[in-house]
């Protein structure tokens, strides 16, 4: 049994969403800009391509930063190649909708994306499950979308990108937390679109000059959301809430938890709704995607560094297919102690996303 909690899929162009949009939004998508509505994007480029080069051909016509992966390609290069039993689908460009300045438009596009991915992927291959894309900057609309799609078996959670105007623990997001708590759906916070659109800079140092800098720092937005969620007592107020931190690495979370635990002891009066030491909420409510697994020359250093996270209970295998920094399953698993592997391979994700248990022959 293998569950991959981070597979990226996306449309080829926004026009793919036209059949799922209302007439006024269709008009905007077609008529905006020079050649149709363009999404904001990263100010940097990966120097040799965002995606694995063997899953696409360079063409003459620019589309999005990311490439359209057909279901056939996904099956051939990933699901079948690695015997993935269940794969959690995350967005590519559609992740940017949460940092689009026009929140109403973003909400309509998010709904269309969910309908598109449902029809073209989730209903076509039962190994796939979707994460609901919402316009986080419009929490009421996001909550409506969560309630619209969250009742379907094909969707198993809600996707929130690292890039945001305000950290996700802030009370403005309460409608989103109320909806996921009501439906028992987990939330994945996944690095994406920091510095883009209405999102703040990836760190307070200011704008990095190089993609290599950005990609080293890109988890910073997630760390902000992580600490915000803990300090706002989300897990006290919404006890059914579960959150996964995906593609932010692992080691930084250890340092932030240790520091937050220390600060909580001195600042508890400021955040009295945090009734327990912040790290104690992790074991019941938070899971971590494995990719990118930090890879020092000595793997033992990595294992020692992440042990505090109790990875045997909190780590879920994530490939990040088809991006350039994806981790294939066996390469990830063999870096971990053998007694952790089954949990990381599937059991932790199965419980977190409440997926079907494996059939015992």
């Amino acid at each position: 049994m293998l569950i991959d909690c981070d597979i990226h899929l996306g449309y080829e162009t926004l026009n793919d969403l036209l059949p799922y949009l209302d007439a006024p939004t269709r008009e905007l998508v077609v008529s905006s800009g020079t050649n149709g509505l363009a999404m904001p994007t990263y100010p940097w480029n990966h120097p040799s391509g965002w995606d694995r080069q063997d899953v696409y051909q360079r063409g003459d016509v620019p589309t999005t930063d990311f490439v359209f992966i057909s279901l056939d390609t996904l099956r051939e290069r990933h699901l079948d190649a690695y015997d993935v039993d269940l794969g959690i689908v995350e967005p590519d460009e559609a992740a940017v909708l949460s940092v689009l300045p026009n929140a109403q438009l973003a909400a309509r596009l998010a709904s269309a994306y969910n309908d598109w991915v449902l029809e073209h992927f989730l209903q076509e291959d039962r190994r796939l499950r979707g994460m609901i894309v919402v316009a986080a900057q419009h929490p009421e609309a996001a909550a409506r979308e969560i309630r619209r799609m969250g009742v379907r078996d094909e969707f198993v959670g809600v996707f929130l990108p690292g890039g945001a105007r305000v950290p996700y623990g802030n009370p403005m997001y309460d409608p989103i937390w109320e909806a996921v708590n009501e439906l028992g759906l987990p939330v994945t916070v996944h690095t994406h679109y920091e510095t883009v659109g209405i999102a703040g800079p990836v760190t307070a140092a200011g704008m990095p000059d190089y993609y290599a800098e950005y990609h080293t720092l890109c988890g910073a937005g997630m760390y902000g959301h992580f600490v915000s969620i803990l300090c706002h007592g989300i897990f006290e107020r919404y006890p059914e809430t579960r959150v996964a931190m995906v593609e932010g690495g692992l080691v930084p979370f250890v340092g932030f938890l240790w520091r937050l635990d220390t600060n909580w002891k001195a600042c508890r009066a400021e955040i009295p709704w945090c009734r327990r030491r912040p790290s104690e909420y992790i074991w019941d409510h938070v899971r971590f995607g494995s990719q990118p697994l930090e890879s020092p020359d000595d793997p033992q250093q990595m294992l020692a560094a992440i042990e505090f996270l109790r990875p045997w209970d909190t780590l879920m295998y994530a490939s990040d297919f088809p991006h350039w920094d994806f981790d294939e399953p066996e390469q990830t698993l063999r870096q971990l102690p053998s007694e952790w592997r089954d949990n990381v391979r599937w059991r932790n994700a199965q419980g977190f996303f409440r997926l079907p248990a494996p059939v015992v022959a």
Partner: protein
Amino acid sequence: MTPAEREARLPLSDAPAEGAVRMLDVGGHRVGLYRLDDALYALADRCPHRGGPLCAGRVATPVEVRDGTLTIGTPRSIVRCPWHKWEFEISTGRCLVDERLRVRTYPVRLEDGEVVVSLDRPPGSPDARPGG
């Protein structure tokens, strides 16, 4: 395996152009044949980093800094793994970002107008050069 089975042969006219690759089966091993600076080189189709299909990667020109000046190295002299984008010298198999890694290379020779790629490396054999 007989000595002949440990080799792959093709007419010199079928050897790849610079910047291209010709895939061969050499005794059951997938090997990519490349041309660089009028010499032929053969690399294993397996990236030593994570086992990716190296020869499906793009042939590229390395970007370098020499004497503080941004410049380029030998044109079309590296292959970039399609999976994680690590770069390897076609002529040596050397990885440009991790000196511990080297992709397996295979000897190439010319024989009676044919290119011969072998699993076995004769001691001191020079690289084959078209017309050489």
